[in-house]
C-alpha cells in the first residue's frame, strides 16, 4: 500500500516534469519549435525543457520521417534514455510512414521502438501536440506508459522466478 502511494507521488512528479528529447528529422520540426516556443509554450503543461542528450531526458519526441537507415540510430537513442521513459510519434510520418511508400522510409517509428502516443497531422497543429501531451500525462499517472508496463511485467517475471526457487 505504502509503495503504491509512493509510486503515485513519483508519477505525479514525472508527468509534470517531462524532459523532452526532440528527435527532429523533417518539416514537423517547425511545428515542434512553434509548440515549444512562447506562443504555445509546452512548458505550461509540464514539458519544460528540451534536452539534447538522451541520457538526460525521459520523453522521446520523434518529429518527422524516419528512414530505414536511421533505424539503428533511433534505437540507440531510445536505449540510452533512462527509465522510466515515454515516446511520442509526432506527425503521420513518425506514426505510420505517412505518404512515403518507398525503399527508404520506415513505415512508422514503432517498427523499431515502442510508441506511447501517436499524433496524426502533416504537420499536427500545436493544440494536437498539447492534447497528446495531456493524454500521455494521463497514462503516466495511470502507469500505462510502455516502460511502466514493461517494468511491471519484468517485476512479475522476477517474482515468479523467485517463487519457483523457494
Amino acid at each position: 500500500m505504502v509503495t503504491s502511494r509512493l509510486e503515485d507521488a513519483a508519477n505525479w512528479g514525472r508527468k509534470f516534469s517531462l524532459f523532452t528529447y526532440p528527435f527532429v528529422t523533417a518539416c514537423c520540426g517547425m511545428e515542434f519549435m512553434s509548440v515549444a516556443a512562447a506562443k504555445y509554450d509546452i512548458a505550461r503543461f509540464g514539458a519544460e525543457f528540451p534536452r539534447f542528450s538522451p541520457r538526460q531526458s525521459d520523453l522521446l519526441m520523434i518529429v518527422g520521417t524516419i528512414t530505414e537507415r536511421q533505424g539503428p540510430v533511433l534505437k540507440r537513442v531510445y536505449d540510452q534514455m533512462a527509465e522510466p521513459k515515454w515516446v511520442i510519434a509526432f506527425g503521420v510520418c513518425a506514426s505510420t510512414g505517412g505518404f512515403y511508400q518507398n525503399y527508404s522510409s520506415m513505415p512508422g517509428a514503432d517498427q523499431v521502438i515502442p510508441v506511447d502516443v501517436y499524433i496524426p497531422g502533416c504537420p499536427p497543429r500545436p493544440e494536437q501536440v498539447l492534447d497528446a501531451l495531456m493524454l500521455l500525462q494521463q497514462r503516466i499517472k495511470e502507469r500505462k506508459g510502455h516502460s511502466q508496463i514493461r517494468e511491471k511485467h519484468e517485476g512479475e517475471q522476477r517474482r515468479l522466478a523467485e517463487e519457483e526457487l523457494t
Partner: protein
Amino acid sequence: MSAVLDALQKKFGTAILATDSRFGDDVVEIGPDKLVELATWLKTDPAMAFDCPVFVTCTDRLGFPVPPDEVSKFKFSAADDRGPNPAREASLGPKEVLHDHAAADNIRPDDVVDEDDRGPNPAREASLGPKEVLHDHAAEPRFEVLYQLRSIRRRHGLRIKIRLRSDKLEVPSLAALWPAFDWQERETWDMYGVVFKGHPDLRRIYLYEQFVGYPLRKDYPKEKRQPLVRREWTDEVTAFHGDETKGGARG
C-alpha cells in the same frame, strides 16, 4: 544550333552521335570512350570554359514511351532518315542481346513500327495521329547517363548524354576533372548502379552498404523495403499492446 554545339561538331566530328537543342537545352550525345577527352576540352578551352558542373544523373528508359519524332533514332534501320551512322552503331555494341524486361513490363516490341508489309500509306498514318511507341529494350541501350554543365564566364550550358546498355553500364569518372561530380557520381551509382571507372571512392552515399539493388531503376519493386533493424516482439511488447487495444492512445 547553338555556338557550343557548332564548336563541338567542328572539333569532334563523327564522335558526336546526336545533338539536340529543343526547349533551350543543348544536348550532345557521345559514346563513353570519348567522354574524358570531350569533358577536358569543354573545361579547358577558353571559348567553352565550363566551370560549373551542375549534376550527374541517369535515366532508366525501361517502358518509356518514345516521342513519335524520335522513333527513327531508336530503330537503327534503313528507315532512319539520317542514314546509317557507323560510329554510333559501333558504340552500341551487338544488337541481339535480349532482356526479360519487355515481357515483364508488358512492352510489346511489335509496337515499334517497322516496315509495313503493305507499303507506306501516308493518308492512313495521318488519320491515326501520332502513335505512341514504347522503347524496345531488345536492341537498344536502356540507360542514359547525363552530365549537366554550365559556364558562368561564358553564360552557356550543355548536357552530355551517354546511352548505355544494361550489360555494360560503365562510364569513365569525371571526379578528377570537376571535384563536385565526386558525390554526384556516387549518388548515380547508389541509385542506378552505373559504374564510374576511376572514381576515387565509389561507395553508396544515401543508402547503407547492406542494401541490395538500385532503387531508382524502373524494375526495383516500388515498395520493397530492406530494414536494418526491427523491434523484437517479446512478452513485454505484447503486454503493452494488449493494454493498448483495450482503449489506449492509438484512437
